[in-house]
């Protein structure tokens, strides 16, 4: 299968559980190794891209280290990179950007789920990655927090202007965030459809109510249902 993510583009990948969308993301991040096929990240192989820290990864679990405070967690990629980081962002400015300014020295277990994920996003951005890889980042959050986090993510992404590849189950979330939505089918995992999202930016809470949004959601939904046709739910 083939997929491309351009600079400054937000691409969402939707599909049923088990279609391999998370695996795809893990391959791009070089957390798993592909047996066949070619992945190119910023003109490099995933291994080289990882060595050069071109990707920022946000997992479903925020994976903050509890023995570090929020600031130290956000600084972690810089610490690990040492002198290898070209021009890291100001971690404090990032913490402000994700709205955790008052919690820079908070203990991570004192934060709510949404706040933890904000910190994880700040951490993913601190080395100024070319592409942000998001694996169901808000999957564990309640619906209201999830909506708020989507708005936040758009705001952060539009300020940072990185490319983004996000995996999600939620069609509404995918359409709301992305420039393009790719639909994956299960067994074998394949990209069976691609829908451009013609919604103007900046998008806001009103976008959810617009006719274009609903129309786009229903198109993706039809594609997705077509993709899973014949497999038992």
């Amino acid at each position, binding site marked *: 299968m083939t997929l491309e993510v351009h600079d400054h583009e937000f691409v969402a990948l939707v599909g049923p559980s088990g279609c391999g969308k998370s695996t795809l993301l893990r391959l791009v991040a070089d957390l798993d190794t592909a047996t066949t096929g070619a992945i190119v990240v910023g003109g490099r192989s995933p291994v080289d891209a*990882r060595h050069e820290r071109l990707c920022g990864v946000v997992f479903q679990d925020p*994976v903050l280290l509890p*023995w570090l405070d929020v600031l130290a967690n956000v600084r972690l990629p810089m610490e*690990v*990179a040492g002198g290898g980081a070209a021009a890291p962002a100001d971690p404090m400015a990032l913490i402000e950007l994700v709205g955790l300014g008052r919690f820079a020295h908070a203990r991570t277990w004192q934060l709510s789920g949404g706040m933890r994920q904000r910190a994880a996003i700040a951490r993913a951005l601190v080395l100024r990655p070319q592409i942000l890889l998001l694996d169901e980042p808000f999957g564990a959050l309640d619906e209201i927090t999830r909506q708020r986090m989507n708005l936040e993510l758009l705001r952060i992404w539009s300020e940072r202007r990185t490319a983004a590849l996000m995996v999600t189950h939620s069609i509404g979330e995918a359409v709301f965030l992305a420039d393009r939505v790719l639909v994956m089918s299960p067994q074998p995992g394949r990209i069976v459809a691609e829908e451009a999202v013609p919604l103007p930016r900046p998008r806001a809470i009103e976008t959810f109510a617009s006719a274009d949004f609903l129309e786009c959601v229903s198109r993706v939904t039809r594609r997705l249902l077509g993709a899973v046709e014949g497999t038992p739910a």
Partner: protein
Amino acid sequence: MKGARGWTVTLIVLVGVVVLWEIAERLVAARFPLVPAPSAIGGAIVRFATPIWLNLRLTLIESALGLVSGSLLGLAVAAVFVRWPRLERSLYNLIVTIHSIPLVAVAPILLIWFGVGITAPTIVAGLACFFPMAVNATRGLRAASASSLDLMRALDASQIQTFLRVRGPASLPYVMAALKLGAPAAVLGATVGEWLGTAGVGYLLFSAMVNFQVELLWATMVIATGVALAGYLLFSVAERVLVAWGPSARGET
């Protein structure tokens, strides 16, 4: 806090037992001369302060040396097990077997090998805390979550960085738990190792027994208990400071 309340209850129960014991003693003292009253034990502690202290000092040194060496050895074994899981499968039973040898049986053997002195009790003390550390640290070094290891890989961290920043800190609650178990165990081990020696708390207990100095026997026992408990408390406090993020500091255990 839950911990503090637990200790308050313990203290109240302890004081209650001591008071009842004292009362009972005064009522029926003559019939049971083998059980001295708490006041008599307290008196003995004061009276025998010098010999108790001189012997205790030696036991403390042996316990500390044993705790350090036994724990370091346990840590080393755990590190080897985690690095080469195959070795764990083949050697774990050996470790359990070593742990199953009664310390009172080891002590005379070591005494024959090393003669009277500090060596044999130190080794017994080390053996006593080796096992808890080996088992706990093996679990601890595997305690880092798969997702945190993924994170370190995504950050292109080296093995050493991953160890220092994730695996090490994640193992700390387990290591501290082993030290809490190990500190009293080391005191016990050193005492057992001194049993047939010529100095130390173990020797003092033995000589008090054969010389029928019942009050000295009890006094030494109380002191030895206090020292073992102090060791436990020392590492409890250290745990709260070092593992402020851990479950016990957050009142989850």
